[in-house]
């Protein structure tokens, strides 16, 4: 475990060396959520709520969804694709280190710094707009919300890893990444809370794992999900982690058999 934590530390130092670049990535992740609160707030015009969401709920929802997106978002598909296509994977195969875990802990180096920064920005947002951000009434809700960030990160990371190792067979994975990005945008609740969508879209969202990358954690924070439903979602999220993890392990092993390590 020490070697993986060392990777996390090294990567955190690397990101701190390129502070401007890291700040840009954080702003990119947050900026995607900026327009939607204003769109929904402009729709209220005198109404008390939209589909059960008050003005405070909708602003809080997007602030929390942005936080979860930043915490869960992974860049591992690009790194994995380059390692496979350029032969960079060779060095990892000869080292006593698990390739997937080193990627995950490397990504954590960025997350640790980014989450501190986003917490500071969120605190500033709360101080600037106290009437628009609703904190949970129970402290345990915050604890449960933070716990849900773990499967969110793992699910996002595993999906990105699977896209990256698709390079073993199809080479360039840009199109696959774009398709995942579009599906993720719809089903993680970034465009709108999932229960705003038509029933068919809600059904699809319930079947797919993307709702755990934004919508479900945000709903937990808003205390719109509680008790048995939280337990049910926790179990489903963990099942997704197990399923994606198993599939990734099998696919990676299969891919290594096809890997030639010469670089493309």
């Amino acid at each position, binding site marked *: 475990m020490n070697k993986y934590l060392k990777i996390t530390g090294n990567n955190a130092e690397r990101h701190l060396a390129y502070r401007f670049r890291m700040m840009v990535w954080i702003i990119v992740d947050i*900026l995607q959520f*900026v327009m939607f609160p204003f*769109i929904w707030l402009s729709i209220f015009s005198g109404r008390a709520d*939209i589909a059960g969401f008050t003005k405070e709920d909708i602003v809080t929802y997007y602030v929390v969804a942005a936080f979860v997106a930043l915490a869960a978002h992974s860049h591992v598909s690009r790194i994995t694709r380059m390692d496979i296509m350029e032969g960079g994977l060779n060095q990892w195969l000869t080292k006593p280190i698990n390739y997937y875990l080193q990627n995950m802990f490397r990504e954590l180096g960025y997350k640790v710094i980014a989450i501190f920064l986003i917490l500071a920005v969120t605190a500033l947002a709360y101080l600037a707009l106290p009437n628009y951000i609703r904190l949970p009434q129970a402290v345990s809700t915050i604890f449960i919300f933070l716990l849900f960030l773990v499967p969110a990160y793992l699910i996002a990371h595993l999906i990105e890893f699977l896209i990256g190792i698709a390079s073993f067979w199809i080479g*360039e994975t840009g199109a696959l990444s774009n398709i995942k990005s579009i599906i993720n945008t719809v089903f993680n609740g970034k*465009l*709108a809370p999932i229960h705003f969508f038509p029933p068919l879209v809600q059904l699809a969202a319930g079947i797919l794992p993307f709702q755990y990358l934004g919508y479900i954690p945000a709903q937990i924070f808003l205390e719109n999900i509680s008790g048995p439903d939280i337990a049910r979602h926790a179990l489903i999220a963990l099942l997704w982690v197990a399923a994606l993890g198993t599939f990734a392990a099998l696919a990676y092993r299969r891919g290594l058999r096809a890997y030639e390590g010469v670089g493309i």
Partner: protein
Amino acid sequence: MKQYTKTYRVLVENSISYMAQYRKDTWIKFATNALWLAMLALTIEVIFSFTPELGGWERHEVYLLTVFWLIADEIFVMFFGGNITELPNIVTDGKFDLYLVKPISPLFLVSTRFFSLNSVWRLGIQMIILAWLGLRFDFTASVWHIALAPLLILCAVAIDYSIVLMLNTLSFWFHRIDNVNDLWQVAHDLGKYPVSVLPKTLKIFAFTLVPIAFSGYVPAAVLTGHWPLYGAALAVGAAAMFLLAAISFFRFAQKHYSSASS
């Protein structure tokens, strides 16, 4: 001018030859684009399932705004998309030296090296959608409005080009800033929606420092009567100003360029 036309024709021919090797990739990108258009339509439908109007804009007007945004973005991608964003790599790797020694403007080469053939097909689809919108809904557009629309889209392309050029020109001084293109792309994406929903301060930003309003909002506003016809003069003025600033900045950077060598 003849030299530039001839050079550009060769660059386009090279691009088409290159893209012809990746026919499967073209179909995949087509499918991805269709999925993305469906997502945009779903977003608008979900919003309008809760309201008859958004920031004073009706559903068909928001569709028009989005299509104008798509067309302007596609034209930019077609001619300049994959080119200017390579500038940080070109400067950092010292390849800019090769652009300087050629008997043609380095800015021209940096801007036009690759022509995206895939954008031609996508633009075709977007024009069909625009035509369908025009026939399906009554925008009560006069001949003047219709004549102004292409000009306003060209202004949008010019502003987009200027901003991307200015951001990438920073690479002459700062290393590893290629992700500023992602920053602009995300900001630019926000221009798909009516900026009239934004509070006053952000609206000012959308027309000045982060000019996302010109991509879809201004052309659609003029065409639908949300803005008077002379509002088009603002777009033309802004485009001229941004273009002049971008080209001046690039020339300033070029004068201060010292080769990175290899």
